[in-house]
């Protein structure tokens, strides 16, 4: 597949001085001011920030099984529009991605779609049932080369099973990405436990149910000398635990989701399940702690937890609704709103939290490389001065469950390049 040669002119790499980038044969061939056009197609990037292609460590593509909500094709289109060149597809599909066969199927669908690279996440336990280990080695050795394992949606709550999983994946440099949720403390939980849950009569999801599991898991990871990744950290207490674990030198990484950076539990007072997500939206104090943790590196990455659901699973009473919200097409804007514009993170920091670090945690070699000569030509051009009002109907996802509909957000992804091929130009899919 030979992509055209692109000359990106006057792009501000990581927000720096304007310069040109020449993308040829899937790689960044030249970087510098005033590059010769030759036979290249010119992309005028004046005023735009160039970032390495974004990498999402936490995406639900829903295929196989829930193609009414999202497919690999539609989900990767949404990803490209959001500036992503690689996504990790979570394992809670139907059938569950707990065998080499299923992860290879998802991997192959991603290659056929071509909008971004799809790295399947393998289930830790068979059927996400939390009873016995899935064939982690077979998934690691498959064509999909799985390195991230997670029962996301469910917690590996059995301490012994979690210990064994952490130990076992050391053989192939894998990582266990834990959905930290103590199941007994969160039976029928609907929203953040606090003042508002008591008033609204919605069963609370207490912070301690997340923090207790994270505390246990960082100790287990340290004990067996393995890698732990904590999914969607949502509370101030969790940030403190991860910070302490890192200070101890333990190999622990953590992610925060855009919605937990921006939104708070007060939205539950609408009883509109568009705001129902797991872990739930927390307090203002928690959101601020997440921002601070992301700024100082305690939280390594932003991951979307993009969770598409068909309309009928949200157009109902709160308790009956599904957990989850869309995230791929709005993630970068929300990071700008919550981190860049307030001065907590510069564009180099954004590149780290949304590209370098997630690629490193997922052991993805071809992504998360700096924009320099020789790197794979995975590039996103972003206009931070644009403003847009989110319209649910205009999203590329098959689902419409965005909590940001009608909200004005900063920034716009203008172009995305995957190995030198444009997947998005002028803000539209190619």
């Amino acid at each position: 597949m030979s992509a055209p040669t692109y000359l990106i002119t006057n792009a501000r790499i990581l927000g720096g001085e304007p310069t040109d980038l020449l993308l040829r044969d899937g790689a960044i061939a030249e970087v510098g001011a005033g590059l010769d056009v030759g036979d290249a197609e010119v992309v005028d990037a004046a005023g735009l920030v160039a970032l390495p292609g974004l990498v999402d460590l936490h995406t639900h593509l829903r295929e196989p099984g829930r193609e009414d909500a999202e497919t690999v094709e539609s989900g990767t289109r949404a990803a490209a529009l959001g500036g992503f060149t690689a996504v990790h597809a979570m394992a809670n599909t139907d059938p569950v991605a707990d065998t080499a066969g299923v992860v290879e199927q998802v991997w192959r669908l991603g290659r056929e779609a071509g909008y971004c690279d799809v790295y399947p996440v393998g289930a830790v336990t068979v059927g996400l049932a939390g009873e016995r280990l899935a064939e982690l080695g077979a998934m690691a050795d498959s064509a999909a080369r799985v390195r991230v394992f997670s029962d996301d949606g469910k917690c590996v709550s059995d301490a012994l099973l979690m210990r064994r999983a952490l130990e076992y994946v050391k053989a192939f440099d894998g990582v266990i990405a834990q959905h930290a949720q103590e199941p007994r403390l969160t039976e029928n939980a609907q929203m953040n436990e606090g003042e508002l849950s008591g008033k609204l009569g919605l069963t609370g999801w207490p912070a301690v149910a997340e923090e207790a599991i994270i505390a246990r898991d960082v100790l287990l990871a340290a004990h067996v000398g393995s890698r732990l990744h904590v999914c969607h950290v949502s509370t101030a207490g969790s940030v403190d635990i991860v910070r302490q674990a890192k200070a101890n030198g333990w190999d622990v990484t953590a992610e925060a989701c855009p919605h937990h950076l921006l939104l708070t539990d007060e939205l539950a007072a609408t009883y509109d399940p568009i705001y129902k997500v797991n872990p739930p939206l927390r307090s203002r104090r928690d959101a601020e702690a997440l921002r601070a943790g992301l700024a100082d590196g305690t939280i390594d990455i932003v991951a979307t937890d993009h969770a598409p659901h068909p309309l009928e699973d949200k157009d109902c009473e709160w308790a009956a609704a599904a957990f989850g919200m869309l995230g791929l097409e709005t993630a970068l804007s929300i990071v700008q709103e919550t981190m860049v514009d307030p001065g907590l993170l510069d564009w180099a920091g954004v590149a780290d939290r949304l590209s370098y670090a997630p690629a490193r945690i997922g052991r993805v070699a071809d992504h998360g490389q700096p924009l320099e000569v020789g790197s794979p030509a995975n590039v996103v051009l972003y206009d931070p001065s644009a403003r847009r009002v989110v319209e649910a109907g205009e999203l590329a996802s098959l689902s419409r469950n965005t909590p940001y509909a009608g909200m004005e957000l900063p920034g716009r992804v203008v172009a995305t390049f995957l190995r030198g091929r444009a997947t998005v130009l002028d803000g539209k899919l190619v």
Partner: protein
Amino acid sequence: MKRHLLSAADLTRDEAELVLSTAEEMRSLADRPIKKLPALRGRTIVNLFFEDSTRTRISFEAAGKRLSADVINFAAKGSSLSKGESLKDTALTLEAMGADAVVVRHGASGAPHRLASSNWIRSSVVNAGDGTHEHPTQALLDAFTMWRHLGSLDGRRVAIVGDVLHSRVARSNALLLHTLGAQVTLVSPPTLLPVGVETWPVETSYDLDAVIPKADVVMMLRVQQERMHAAFFPTAREYSRRYGLDGRRMASLQDHTIVMHPGPMVRGMEITADVADSDRSVIVEQVTNGVAVRMAVLYLLLGGSQPAETEQPAETDTEGADA
């Protein structure tokens, strides 16, 4: 009054007092030979019950009929929680039938709020109990009952005792009684008080014996024995000993103090039979007052607005297992 009654917090003091004084007029109707007013003739009220509740449904039905409204009972076989027809489709059906008011009882907290704010229907929505959230007409009838016995509620001490955590009655009463100037104390084991209760406009106590001698009203809440299986308390016997209202505790009440219960009672659990059947007990009167208060609410919500434009159904539909 506003278009909907979803929460006791929707009512200002003036509005709440208007409901009570209107209820007093409605109640006097019960003494007349013809217990019917033409106020809501030609208006349609749907009782939409996703949960079985004979007493609340009958109370609303009687209230609507005494105001000459067409009353339709719709017992949904199960909410979308149990894979029945969805709340939305049910609402669209009612809209198509031209309901002026929908009285909804639902197991999910916030379901009436969803109905009122979703644009699925245009009619007034009255919350007849939603999950563990609120039951505002119960609070209004409780306040009405207190008001008839005690006069103004300003400064009156009301003890609400029992499973506050799971009680929509407690939530609505705490809000409404505060609005009306009463001092509410919630009495409960710590496990059955909601997180964040310290921000409510109430006092709390774990000690029933310390609270009730000063109370003007003791309201007992239903406690389900099954709660002990989720470790809220060790045994039903221990619960009764610490938080049940029995003859010994009743003896410590002031002479004028009344005993209330929203029903259905678990005799021997939160209240003993001798207390429930005593002179202090106004439990049966609460039921009578319930009809008057619901008449007042329906009258005030619908009295000023125009009838729904769509055609009225010819006869009453009693679909489903109406309990």
